[in-house]
């Protein structure tokens, strides 16, 4: 028994050196050698300032001139209050399919789109645009979700719907390798493209 215990301790120590340190630092080294941009978090900079991480969504849903992402249910880890797209506390709403709160939230999101977007009707709004994501950090919306926001963005930016439509289509990401995943638009990069268009 004691001999077995000793062996357990020694094997733990040896494997700890290999797996906790050797593996971690080998991969860190290889990652920075081969894919330094991704390894550092795919940081997007603007005039030398870090403004976004390419895969992580941000909250635009309070600014009428920008395209909005999906609802985010994240709460602040310090205050426990709603804090959309808080990357420090990723997570979903956890609302079940028969929870009245879920329906209430969907109704309110729909109402907000209808109130702010000229000429929009309910049957044009994609379901994913009014239902909150799993991480609260989903950077993507479907192409249709971006297109239906054009009248609002046009109204508040002064750009023409046609310019905006071209902009959205330039930002469409197809499925990976042509087949895997969904055709979508990254809201963060879309809004940066919009910003550049406004400040050219």
């Amino acid at each position: 028994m004691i001999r077995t215990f000793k062996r357990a301790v020694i094997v733990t120590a040896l494997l700890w050196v290999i797996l906790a340190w050797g593996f971690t630092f080998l991969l860190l080294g290889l990652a920075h050698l081969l894919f330094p941009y991704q390894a550092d978090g795919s940081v997007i900079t603007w005039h030398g300032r870090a403004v976004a991480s390419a895969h992580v969504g941000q909250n635009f849903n309070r600014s009428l001139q920008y395209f909005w992402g999906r609802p985010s249910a994240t709460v602040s880890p310090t205050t426990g209050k709603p804090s959309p797209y808080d990357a420090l506390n990723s997570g979903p709403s956890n609302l079940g399919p028969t929870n009245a709160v879920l329906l209430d939230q969907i109704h309110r999101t729909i109402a907000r789109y209808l109130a702010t977007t000229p000429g929009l009707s309910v049957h044009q709004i994609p379901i994913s645009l009014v239902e909150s994501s799993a991480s609260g950090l989903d950077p993507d919306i479907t192409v249709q979700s971006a297109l239906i926001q054009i009248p609002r963005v046009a109204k508040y930016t002064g750009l023409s719907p046609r310019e905006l439509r071209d902009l959205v289509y330039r930002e469409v990401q197809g499925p990976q390798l042509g087949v895997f995943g969904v055709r979508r638009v990254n809201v963060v990069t879309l809004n940066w493209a919009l910003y550049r268009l406004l400040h050219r």
Partner: protein
Amino acid sequence: MSVSTVATWAVVIGGLLILLKPLGTYLYRVFTFQPTILDRPLKPVENVIFRLIGVSRDSSMSAVEYGVAFMLTNLVWAVMAYTLLRLQGLWPFNPQHFGNLSAGLSFNTAASFVTNTNWQAYSGENTMSYFSQFAVLQFLQFVTPASGGAVGVAFVRALAGRPLGNFFVDLTLLITRVLLPLAVIFGLFFVAQGVPDTLAGYLHLHTLTGAAQTVPRGPIAGFEAIEHLGQNGGGFTGANSANPLENPTALTNIAESIAMGLVPVAFFYMFGLFTRRTRLAWTLIAVAGTLYLIMLAMIYFPEAAGNPIVNQLGLLGHANMVGKEVRFGIGGTSIFETSTMAFTTGSVAAAQDSFLPVPSLAFFLGLFLNMVFGGQGVGLLNMLMFVILTIFLMGLMVGRTPEFLRKKIEAREVSLTAIAFLLHPLLILAGGALAVSTKAGLSGIFNPGPYGLSEILYAFASGAANNGSAMGGLNAALPFYEVAIGVVMIIGRYASIMAMLLVGESLLKKKAVPQTTGTMRTDTALFGGILLGAIVVLNALTFFPVMALGPIAEHYLLLAHHLFT
């Protein structure tokens, strides 16, 4: 069904099918100490390890010795993990200056990761330092699946009529020859796809709207690789593989789904090679595979059809996207979720709590059966447990002495197997009963209606099956759940493993009986069908009543458009 869904499923399922034979053969060669391609670089390293712990490659242990070595090693890891987490503030690589974990959370996390459950009562990105992530949790995600896999290897050796082998040798080889090389490959792929891997602190961003956003980083890619290769499922962040930092693309989603299944499925084929019954192995693969496909269908079709209450609002499209990510679509989400429940990984690419009732029934199926390939080694143990039970039942029906692999199955084996089988529902149902009959348990419920009960049952089933995913609404951070789930995980892991090790040894010691025309054949489609039936009936008898009160009740209420407040 979209082209993307078909392509995604084809790659995951086809990939696992193509790889199971070569990888299973490789495992067989590793654990019979035959030459393999990795001998040259790795043998010297392993020899140093074996010399320092004082064992030789070909030494062997009895079932009790093997079990004791397994338990003691796990104990060392638990003490180590508890201590390192409890004193987190003292260690380096903590750029966010996170403090010590509480005693309750340290216990729950140590129990959870050592038992390969990886239930998380915390969110990594605001609790764990980089040191805790890579030197404690990532380390455990390597060694604990390997220790479960080692027991699986020993059991298979016993069934094949060979000595059990040495726990320390099997543990080491499963890591150096299988998990470590695969983790480097998958880790690099994840980085290439955009998973961060760095020791730099969190990113402070100035967003376009003038707000500030802090994005966690860290040594995530390697963590992510072993999280899935070991069917661990402990995420780096709270949202686990739904978080774009952990699972940024459709391809990483596919890679993670494959990574979870690689080793467990290969174990089934390895079993066939050990016992020289590859037809039996294919029968078992077909049975588990059928259940996998049933689960996939149970998850995909209802989710694609959507929530009838939401759909009457007349929005565009009808899929249930609550708690899902756009980039995976329903197809990618479904295959990931099926894999995580079948292989008992427990990482999630969506919010379990927000799935419709039929998909959540599929999740429960995975948790209850625990052998739809299951975790590496352990899933095979559970499958063989059902095989022994089925043979026993068939023997009773036709009035013949049950035999398996030319060994008679008698009172001792059946008793031990029955204990291993009954323990699982006992933990889930007794735990659930305790929770719903106490204030402490009830106060953790989040969703009103039948899903409240489902949340509790899911928590105990996830603990007992060492899966670790959660219907996330449940407040797992309550002391009641920290302790209760912690205890359930420990019993669920060790008691059944020990029982099955003893079954293995007991069969090993028996004299082989000659195979005659009267012997019941186990490698036929007929046996596969009966096995599948027995698995379904045994579990339905145990769990149907409680499922009727949870997801099944929810299903009918949903169809009636009933809302709960």
